[in-house]
């Protein structure tokens, strides 16, 4: 069995770290579905960027994806503010399939008009493709992860307070709006720079699976975020090996098996094992320390 390409390995680990971290935050904000919308909105974004410029350079496509992700994020926020009843799942659920449908319509229109020009490259954004991953992807993922990690580390008290009780955080004078704004931005950035590795269709499953894997093992905010991040790195480390193993076993070396679904399958396995398996840190499920007999 050959070893995976260095860029692919680093990009997968970077994606794991980033989505473990962002996932733990979105989970506590109850915004997993919002992450799903941002990822799906990247698809029409990529296509529009390609249609306008005719270029396949990753920066141009990423910019298109970013603009659409942020745009859809703003629409969700706007709808929730306008119609308080849509709070929670309402607004994202409304836009989720819509954003992907928009991408699919654009995709079929473009196929007819562009006669296969650049299709292969664009298609890798759907499910992720190891062959399409470059060092630029790896550095971007690790860079965004470092920025997000530093932000969460230094503002951990503010973030923990805001996620638990927003009103209270306001009253304590914590920078609620600024922190929420940066977290939204990091989520949009994070989603966009992982498209090549994980793909937009299954990306949000990572945002859900990794924190769920961490949840049963801790009742501290810091440990929860850290554990979710590290489990992401672990899954990211295994993914490229798994892709190579499957490709060599089933005879399509270098093409065919998309990285995204493998990534998500492994993360789901880890989450299931963690939900049903023994606790890692705290030992018993029920912490009875300090209770008088």
């Amino acid at each position: 069995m050959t070893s995976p390409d260095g860029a692919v390995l680093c990009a997968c680990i970077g994606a794991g770290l980033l989505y473990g971290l962002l996932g733990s935050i979105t989970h506590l904000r109850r915004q997993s579905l919002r992450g799903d919308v941002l990822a799906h909105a990247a698809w029409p974004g990529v296509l529009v960027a390609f249609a306008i410029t005719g270029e396949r350079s990753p920066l141009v496509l990423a910019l298109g994806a970013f603009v659409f992700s942020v745009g859809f994020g703003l629409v969700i926020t706007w709808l929730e503010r306008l119609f308080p009843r849509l709070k929670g799942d309402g607004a994202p659920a409304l836009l989720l399939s819509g954003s992907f449908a928009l991408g699919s319509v654009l995709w079929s229109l473009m196929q007819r008009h562009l006669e296969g020009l650049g299709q292969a490259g664009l298609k890798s954004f759907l499910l992720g493709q190891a062959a399409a991953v470059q060092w630029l992807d790896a550095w971007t993922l690790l860079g965004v992860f470092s920025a997000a990690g530093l932000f969460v580390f230094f503002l951990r008290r503010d973030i923990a307070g805001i996620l638990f009780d927003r009103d209270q955080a306001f009253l304590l004078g914590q920078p609620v709006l600024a922190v929420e704004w940066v977290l939204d931005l990091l989520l949009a950035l994070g989603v966009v720079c992982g498209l090549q590795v994980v793909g937009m269709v299954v990306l949000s499953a990572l945002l859900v699976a990794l924190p769920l894997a961490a949840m049963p093992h801790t009742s501290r905010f810091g440990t929860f975020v850290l554990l979710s991040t590290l489990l992401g790195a672990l899954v990211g480390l295994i993914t490229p090996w798994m892709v190579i193993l499957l490709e060599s076993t089933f005879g399509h070396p270098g093409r065919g098996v998309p990285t995204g679904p493998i990534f998500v399958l492994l993360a789901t396995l880890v989450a299931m094992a963690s939900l049903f398996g023994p606790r890692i840190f705290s030992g018993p499920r029920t912490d009875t320390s300090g209770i008088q007999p």
Partner: protein
Amino acid sequence: MAEEPHPLKEPAVRLEDVTVAYGDRPALWDVDLEIPKGSLTAVVGPNGAGKTTLMKTMLGLLKPATGRIEILGKPAQGCRGKVAFVPQRGSVDWDYPATVGDLALMGTHGSLPWWKPLGENEKRRARQALELVDLANLADRPINQLSGGQQQRAFLARALSQEAPLLVLDEPFQGIDASTERAILDLFRKLREKGNTLIVVHHDLHTVRDLFDYCVLLNVRVVAAGPTESTMNEENLRATYGPRLGLDLKRPGNSPLDGMWK
């Protein structure tokens, strides 16, 4: 009936012409209110009277359609950190990864800049707060393993560790047993003696009469506000709760007002 301003003390909270609406339904209508500094004030009224809305509006968490609000002499936005709020415990997700100790520490976070780690002072404040509500032995317990009453007390500890001069509490006795309620009411009295102002949404009219020195009767409008002695009378209560309460008054055993009048 207009409220009688407390003659002796300057107000901790002042509301002028405050109206709050959800959609086109007013939740609070033209509220003028002054709550004196250093008082233990009860806010009383039937379900849907706008009690929680009043609390949230006076704290600056809800924007009124009209009106002016001052807390401790400043606009609501200007007194961040000086007001502690104990919301109804259903307002947060108790599956959040935190321990009782973490919750108590959260009250101290506002006074700490982001680059400083938690110091001895913050930990001491949190510990004292937990002792006051009798939860010190559960400091390491995850908050999703608390009973309703314990959750309520953990919320109270978070507010106490903030050491704010003004405490606003929304139904703090929900799910709390009688002896704990006594202990917490004692705690309220001690806090008032130290010069704190407490504003409590409360349902038990007996304890309001016995323990609170100021009260606000609310039913979308302020029906009456003033010292409990002179404000909690039959006429005002009937104006607040409606005529059904008046009927119940004549049947002992059925009314929250039993025994209030000798």
